């Protein structure tokens, strides 16, 4: 099977991934859909708000730990 895609051409262990443009179409329920036209995102906070929130979640143990964190 063709494992290549025009979106992701990095291979495992080959450096760092970089943002790639999202484009193309896909057929969903018989309709041709442009990738990136469907799910509507909310407005995010700033990167520092996200990082600050994650730090707070870690310090306060807000999110439950994975059931199997011994892996």
């Amino acid at each position: 099977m063709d494992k290549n895609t025009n979106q992701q051409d990095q291979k495992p262990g080959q450096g760092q991934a970089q943002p790639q443009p999202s484009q193309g179409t896909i057929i969903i329920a018989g309709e041709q859909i442009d990738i990136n036209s469907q799910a509507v995102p909310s407005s995010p906070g700033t990167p520092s708000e996200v990082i600050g929130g994650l730090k707070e979640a870690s310090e306060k143990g807000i999110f439950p730990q994975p059931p199997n964190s011994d892996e």
Partner: protein
Amino acid sequence: MSNGTKKTFQDIIFDTCILNYNGNPQIFPQLNTYYLDLLKRQFILAISEITIFELLQDATIKKEREAINILSFFKTYQINSKLLIAAAQLSTLYKEERIPNQQISTSDKIIGATAILTGSLILTADVNDFPRPFFQEAEEKLLVYKDKNRTKMLALQLLGPNQTVITERFSQRP
């Protein structure tokens, strides 16, 4: 050519398990460094609404409020009917590929379908939830940490949907 400074933005959707690992004080400092690295590379950190459901299950009122506040900072992808149809179709593709259906949760199919419809990457600690050939690794990050005097390793993967394979298989569905 416009102004020549068009930037590429791509989202990274967090698998819920990544946020679960946040609560582990041995792992969080390294996770945090990795998040900063991803942001530096201009990625945008995102979640699916299904992650809100997964994280708030069994929460106390206090934790629920705190979690909602923190999750509000993430770009959040809504669940709509198109997305649910795509998630169901993805499930069919897994079955056709003989990937055991019980192996992958409905939540992970919704996250996978969200990545497909938005051209996003997924950050996960469990590649089995987003199987080949539909998802492929763009980057791997190994976190080594100490837990009760034992050295452990957590492998994080950035996975991207293989749109070529997915489109082909979608069209070949029975």
